[in-house]
């Protein structure tokens, strides 16, 4: 009989796998009793099962185990805890230590020369502007041409301090620290007079800076007197200042007093400026303790030494008009340093305020020439590169 003849042949695998219903299975089993073809097919399927089960085992190659273990060992070595005695470990740790050292040293020097904008931000903009305006208006340090010639002093600079710390009881109140003593340094150098005020007084209300500053000639060694001592010597300092500095006789002699924080006084402008730069010097004590009794050479002459100080912007406005605006404005906190009849140095403490300054110049029609506008952009870009930590400092020359 031909094996292809039976219609139940395709049913056999399903029957063998138990896929038939009970009725189908019963019918097929009944058929199997009489169908030789299907019986033969079932036998062949079962013989295939038997053959499959008798397929010989294949022994694994001898090197299989060693391959597996060596691979795992190599992975384990890669992932294993650091072997502190290994050469690469020391090299790596040395590299890490070197990086940390560089970062630490870099940050140390960086922080030494940069202003901490956060100190300024503690006061509101209005408070800052108000203080600055009053400061500019009130602080007129006399310096006539005659007295300059007589005293061989070309420039006077007075620096004050503003500490804008929020007090615990009243966050809006501002604490001012004003120098109670002036120091005169580098007398030997003709054409310069370097003055710094050191000390502090604390008040809850804002008063004109002239009410707060007491100055006196510096001791020969330029020591800085402690706070209590400074307060007790107020009257003496005032007298000394009055006798040392003549009354103002012209607009030219006006000095702009800058308010900076105590920390700024200790950290800003560490470099000595190039000879070509305007002489805007300050005396700054080092941070080390016990500086009160330090000799004068412990004080460093510092200035705005940033290369951007060499950038000069020419504004289409008179210096007096600009100063008037600077006194009145509540929009920007800036430092104004008098350089000469037609020149000021502007220092602005943040990028945002610099942008406001730039905008105001344009709005007021004082905008500088296209060439100088590019300088503004240059300042901005350069300051952004320096991580926004330093001030925006530049020279502004007035055409009118």
């Amino acid at each position: 009989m031909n094996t292809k003849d039976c219609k139940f042949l395709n049913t056999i695998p399903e029957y063998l796998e138990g896929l038939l219903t009970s009725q189908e299975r019963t019918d097929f089993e009944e058929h199997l009793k009489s169908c030789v073809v299907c019986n033969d097919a079932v036998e062949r399927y079962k013989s295939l099962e038997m053959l499959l089960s008798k397929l010989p085992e294949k022994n694994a190659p001898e090197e299989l185990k060693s391959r597996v273990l060596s691979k795992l060992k190599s992975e384990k070595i890669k992932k294993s805890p650091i072997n502190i005695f290994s050469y690469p470990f020391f090299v790596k740790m040395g590299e890490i230590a070197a990086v940390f050292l560089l970062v630490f040293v870099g940050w140390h020097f960086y922080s030494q020369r940069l202003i901490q904008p956060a100190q300024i931000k503690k006061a509101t903009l209005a408070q800052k502007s108000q203080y600055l305006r009053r400061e500019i208006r009130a602080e007129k340090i006399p310096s006539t041409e005659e007295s300059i010639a007589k005293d061989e002093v070309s420039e006077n600079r007075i620096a004050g301090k503003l500490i804008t710390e929020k007090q615990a009881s009243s966050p809006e109140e501002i604490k001012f620290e004003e120098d109670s003593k002036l120091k005169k340094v580098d007398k030997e150098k003709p054409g310069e007079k370097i003055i710094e005020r050191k000390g502090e007084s604390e008040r809850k209300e804002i008063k004109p800076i002239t009410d707060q500053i007491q100055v006196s000639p510096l001791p020969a060694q330029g020591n800085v007197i402690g706070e209590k001592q400074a307060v007790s010597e107020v009257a003496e300092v005032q007298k000394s200042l009055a006798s040392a500095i003549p009354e103002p006789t012209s607009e030219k002699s006006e000095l702009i007093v800058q308010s900076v924080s105590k920390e700024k006084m200790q950290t800003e402008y560490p470099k000595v400026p190039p000879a070509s730069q305007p002489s805007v010097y300050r005396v700054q004590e080092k941070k080390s303790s016990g500086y009160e009794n330090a000799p004068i050479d412990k004080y460093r002459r510092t200035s705005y030494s940033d290369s951007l100080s060499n950038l000069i912007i020419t504004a289409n406005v008179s210096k007096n008009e600009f100063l008037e605006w600077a006194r009145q404005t509540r929009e920007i906190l800036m430092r104004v340093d008098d350089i000469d009849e037609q020149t000021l140095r502007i220092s602005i403490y943040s990028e945002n305020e610099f942008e406001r300054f730039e905008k105001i110049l344009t709005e007021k029609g004082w905008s500088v020439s296209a060439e100088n506008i590019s300088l503004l952009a240059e300042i901005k870009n350069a300051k952004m590169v320096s991580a926004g930590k330093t001030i925006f400092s530049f020279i502004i020359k007035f055409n009118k």
Partner: protein
Amino acid sequence: MSFISKISPEDEKILIGRCKKGDLTAFSELIDSYQNKVFSLAFRLIGNEDDAEDISQEIFVKFFRTVNLFKGESSLATWLYRITVNEVKNFWKSKTMRNSLKTKSIDSLSDPEDENIAKVQFADPTPSPRDIASENELLSHLERLMKKISDEFREILILRFKENLSYEEIASILNINIGTVKSRLARARIELKSLMEPYL
């Protein structure tokens, strides 16, 4: 089940625990116990010793890497079956394997053995193959022809009849339901029988 370990279940548990702690010595003992089974299954599924060795290596490495996931809910043998089947499936998916199989299929058209078979068939179709081939010969034919059936059918035939796994175990390993296991087996039987028909 065909994956019968040479070590007792208790010792196996201890070895697995040590493997979980990264003990390669314990793992070495487990390899001794299972390497022939794993390699053999891989060879039956793939049909090539070199590839089977590579895959067996990957299976054991993968087992060691993932031994922490083994919680003892199934037997270690089932766990190894699953890894083996998955690794073999990955191998099948690779283009190289596909190309290799295609090449072999084409080559097989000019296989001297096949020519002889054809000659035998044409020369004397009536005698039963059982009369002219011993069981060993049948097995060699089976081994050769198993490479020609689809991967899916070869896989399930090996697991069911070579490894003697139950429907439930196969369903678990292949992640399919039991009905699918049975129907796939039925179709695999038909394909295998059609290939082996001349020799049965």
